[in-house]
């Protein structure tokens, strides 16, 4: 691997990211999967970095899931998207930041389509007006929330309590970065680092002291794929995709996986349990799995937040091995205590994959 070659490509795929004033929209599903992640984004951007990041409760789904499940036509999706832009315009923002990768892809696709077919944009404006009497300006800048964390990665590094370094050996932790398919595969120039060698997460990992693993199936989908998971009959296909990735990354002995998509951490995390139950195989050390994180969770750990405040107890694969390596202090007894310190009860432990 020639690192300079990658640097050259990264330099070709840089996007302009304004430093402040972002209109932030949440994902449909992330709050259920990893509830603290989006909360941590606002916490870091607003509290730690002091940025203007605005949210509105009127925001709805972008229509991406339905679109990718082939249940609604593109015009409908675009009208939903137009409404989100209208809300942004009404709030007085022009930098749009979705938390969901599929939304990001959806917005990028919509904007590109309008650029290519202005008559379609006109039609959507008309649709939106007919539907809810709203008007909108197109966002000036579109960035995924991971783009923003990437943008502010050095500022986070400056405030870091823990680094992605193995405290026992002093070696950088080996991190697999997994990018959501809809981030840059459709429009390589819309993603930091392009589609082949995306840099958005790799940049964070490098900045925070870790070492990025480049393994053969790095481009491969996590296995979610919408239809492939939503129909139970197809779930074997979804599972096999994920399995392929783990088989490919296994020899590199990764310490953790970092992701920037709602579905990816979920599937990479939960399928490890299913694979272990079905084949008896685990990919981490000593019978554990490879812990999977969102970039906000990693940022939170780096900034010294309590793992249980980051919602890491909701992961299927135990995160404790990584916490130990990073030197993050945590109270094992507090793992299953709720926000009000009430005992949530310890879940049933799986048979084949070690958990705490």
């Amino acid at each position: 691997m020639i690192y300079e070659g990658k640097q050259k490509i990264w330099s070709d795929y840089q996007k302009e990211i304004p430093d402040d004033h972002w209109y932030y929209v949440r994902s449909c599903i992330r709050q259920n999967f990893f509830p603290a992640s989006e909360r941590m984004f606002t916490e870091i951007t607003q509290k730690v970095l002091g940025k203007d990041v605005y949210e509105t409760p009127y925001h709805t789904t972008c229509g991406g899931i339905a679109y990718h499940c082939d249940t609604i036509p593109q015009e409908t999706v675009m009208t939903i998207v137009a409404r989100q832009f209208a809300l942004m315009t009404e709030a007085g923002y022009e930098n749009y930041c979705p938390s969901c990768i599929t939304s990001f892809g959806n917005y990028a696709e919509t904007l590109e389509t309008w650029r290519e077919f202005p008559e379609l944009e006109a039609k959507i404006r008309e649709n939106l007006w007919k539907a809810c009497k709203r008007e909108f300006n197109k966002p000036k800048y579109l960035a995924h929330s991971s783009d923003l964390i990437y943008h502010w990665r050095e500022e986070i590094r400056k405030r870091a309590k823990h680094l992605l370094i193995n405290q026992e050996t002093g070696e950088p932790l080996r991190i697999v970065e997994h990018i959501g398919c809809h981030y840059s595969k459709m429009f390589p120039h819309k993603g930091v680092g392009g589609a082949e060698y995306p840099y958005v997460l790799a940049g964070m990992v490098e900045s925070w002291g870790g070492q990025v693993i480049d393994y053969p199936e790095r481009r491969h989908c996590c296995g979610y794929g919408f239809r492939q998971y939503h129909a139970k009959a197809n779930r074997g296909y979804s599972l096999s995709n994920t399995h392929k990735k783990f088989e490919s990354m296994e020899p590199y002995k990764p310490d953790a996986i970092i992701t920037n998509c709602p579905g990816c951490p979920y599937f990479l995390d939960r399928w490890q349990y299913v694979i272990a139950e079905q084949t008896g195989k685990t990919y981490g050390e000593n019978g554990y799995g490879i812990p999977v994180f969102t970039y906000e969770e990693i940022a939170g750990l780096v900034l010294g937040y309590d793992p249980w405040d980051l919602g890491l107890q909701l992961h299927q694969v135990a995160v404790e091995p990584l916490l130990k390596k990073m030197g993050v202090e945590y109270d094992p007894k507090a793992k299953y205590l709720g926000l009000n310190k009430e005992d949530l009860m310890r879940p049933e432990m799986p048979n084949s994959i070690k958990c705490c």
Partner: protein
Amino acid sequence: MIDFGFTLSKSSTVDLNKIDHSRYDQLVKLVPTARMCMNCGSCGATCTVSEYKGMSVRKVLYGIQRGEDVKAMLSSCMLCGKCTMVCPRGINTRNLILNLCKLYD
């Protein structure tokens, strides 16, 4: 083992590093012309049996290089020799089939 109602599906990928080439290697020693196939498909198009069993020497020859099970096709061959007649590369297709019929365990 928990029944989830779904399992890992078998990969359809041809992994050339994992395919057993020994049968093909033996074959090309016995029938050197087998290497010359350019996948034109004349053999399958003319094959007497193709209309009944989808037989094609091309598929057989290519299949064994890609780890496919070609036994059913081999079983259906009547050795009539039309494929030998039409092959533009002069591959001895009948000898190829006969030898393959011997190379399976």
